């Protein structure tokens, strides 16, 4: 499914709000200025997800996965390749030596970062679209990109769509690029897009009144 330009602009606007909240939370937590940019937003059917993700990650990936429920339900992911994940943890947790492998404590940091980002993103969507979400505890997994994508389609016949949002963390002049993915069933996706349209229309109406 392709978003119209207006829908894409609206989602980008919402994501920007969420990312600025995430960046503020991470800055508070770490004492370092953290920036979080949105290079790109687009949507695709789940069967095209792997090739779409290849732009951001490859090989083995670290995935923070959070199931969310409510009027719109689905799966939210923060995806980073393992090297990027290790670098992000080192930058945020101020590791003194570069890490090649993610140990238990590093994985927890990554889960917390993913949790903050996914909570903020879904929170902003929920607040602005007047939809209430509830969230499961985030889970961190290290697996190949193929296995991660396969796990989304296994055992389900439901048509699902994915919303992909590039996410570039900038910390102390270094940057790490990953991807935020929302996977929604077709009903939830249509509802989500309808709410985005309504929000965008409302925003334009407000703008017209000014």
């Amino acid at each position, binding site marked *: 499914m392709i978003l119209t330009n207006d829908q894409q602009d609206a989602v980008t606007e919402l994501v920007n709000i969420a990312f600025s909240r995430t960046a503020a939370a991470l800055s508070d937590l770490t004492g370092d200025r953290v920036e979080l940019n949105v290079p790109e937003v687009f949507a695709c059917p789940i069967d095209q997800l792997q090739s779409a993700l290849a732009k951001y990650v490859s090989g083995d990936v670290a995935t923070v996965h959070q199931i969310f429920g409510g009027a719109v339900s689905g799966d939210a992911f923060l995806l980073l390749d393992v090297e990027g994940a290790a670098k992000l943890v080192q930058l945020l947790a101020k590791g003194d030596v570069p890490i090649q492998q993610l*140990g238990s404590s590093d994985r927890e*940091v990554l889960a917390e970062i993913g949790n903050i980002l996914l*909570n903020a993103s879904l929170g902003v969507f929920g607040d602005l679209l007047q939809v209430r979400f509830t969230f499961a505890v985030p889970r961190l997994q290290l697996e190949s990109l193929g296995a991660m994508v396969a796990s989304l389609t296994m055992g389900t016949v439901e048509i699902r769509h994915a919303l992909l949002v590039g996410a570039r963390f900038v910390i102390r002049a270094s940057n790490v690029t990953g991807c935020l993915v929302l996977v929604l069933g077709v009903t939830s996706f249509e509802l989500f897009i309808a709410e985005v349209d309504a929000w965008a229309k409302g925003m334009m109406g407000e703008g017209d009144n000014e």
Partner: protein
Amino acid sequence: MNDAPSSNTTVPSRPAPIGLSSALLTDLDIVADWGLLATDRDLKITFVNSWLERQTDRTADSLLGHSLLEIFASVTPDNQLNYYRQALEGRTAVLSQRLHNFLIPLPPPATQTRFEFMQQTCRIIPLIDAGEISGTLTIIEDVTERVAYETELRERVTALREADQHKDEFLAMLAHELRNPLAPISNAVQILRMSGLNNPMVEAARDVIERQVVHMVRLVDDLLDVSRVSRGKIQLQKLPIDLCAVARQAIETSRPLIDSHRHHFEVVLPNELVLVEGDFVRLAQLISNLLNNAAKYTDPEGQISLFVETSYGSDHRTEQAIVRVCDNGRGIDPSLRDRLFTLFYQADRNLDRSEGGLGIGLALVKSLADLHGGTIQAESPGRGLGSEFILRLPLLKNAMPMTLAKPDSSLTIQPLKFLVVDDNTDSAESMAQLLRADGHTVSTTYDAHKAIEIALQERSAVILLDLGLPELTGYEVCRILRQSGLSESCIIAMSGYASKQDDGVDEEAAFDAHFLKPVDYERLKNVLNEHFQSR
């Protein structure tokens, strides 16, 4: 709690909200080795499990009904309270130990003295009863032991890195110190050669000294190279070069060793150029190391072959330049193949070590191959069945090769006025003798200040200046001489270190050339010839 959302926030009924029922808490206490703490929507404590009772040294009765903020002062609006607000809105939170250390200050396990407080990883999640968020649940995991272990591991890694760095620095220093005595020995051999003595016994003894000095210089060079590789200080002069020309240079270097073992040596080079982007000297060193290795680990009168060719890589698209060195020697045990390129590793540790060596050659080969974006691979059917080393480098297309000028060993230079400055008196005097034997006028000094005085007074044409002088370094002496108007002199640095970067000084002091000890006399003559011809 003033900041908490108002009660009775209802979550949509379909699909079911995500959370944990408070009815499960008592059951969880039986199976969980974690802290469990539940609150209502006003953050008043409604449940603590036995783990938390033990850790806080308080009974559940003394905690229940009290506000979380009142009991645990560490939970403040400035830090963790926001997570509870989120939970009351249906969100979950993970608090990692690395970013928070702990949520609630509790004593560490008795076995841990490293931390003042128990290190914790926590989750704060909504409690759901009858489809409504009824409060929060905090799950606290004690990770103190794990974090202590991880911290210790990190400290050990840091200590090992430091030790490794000290080792590299020691190797560089050792190589430097070993070079100093080699310089006068090498000079003395040259003097003996020029003295015209024809006594066969003296000649034989001189040849022994010369061969052993060359061998020692090679060992010291290897040591220096390996310390430079480990410290990332090797700098390649990459240019488009013909790999066949590189191979010919390597053959010239290794030929004496191959011939001394009476090996049959086959060389197969293509007629066309095989261009790569590389450092001529370093790639020649790499191939020479492979040839020396083959010569050393093949029994006398064995077969050694060198092939240079091109082929497509595993992707069937990229063309590669390939150098193969094959022998029918001692071969490689399959179980040892992966360790061959490890520094200081020697497959023949238990043999008589008749070929000696430090276990550096192949490690250096791998480092140099890596630095050129290439690979090195060792193949062997097994012990006693020979081996094959395959170097693969990216092939360069559409470029012209650069050629290196070879030193002219028959060169003679007109008599010049020299000043030799070295605090190692043997080194200074033997170099002076060598130069005098060639007809030059030579002054020597072992002192930096005296060197400045003599150089300015005599207006020396050539100043051979040791960098490691006491009081003033060679760099400082050179700078003073240049500033004092000695611009026409050829000032040459001599150092036990292989490059300017190795001696820790990174400044341009207007030297005309930089020589490694022992000074290669033929190269010195070439440098001087070029210098004075250009004037």
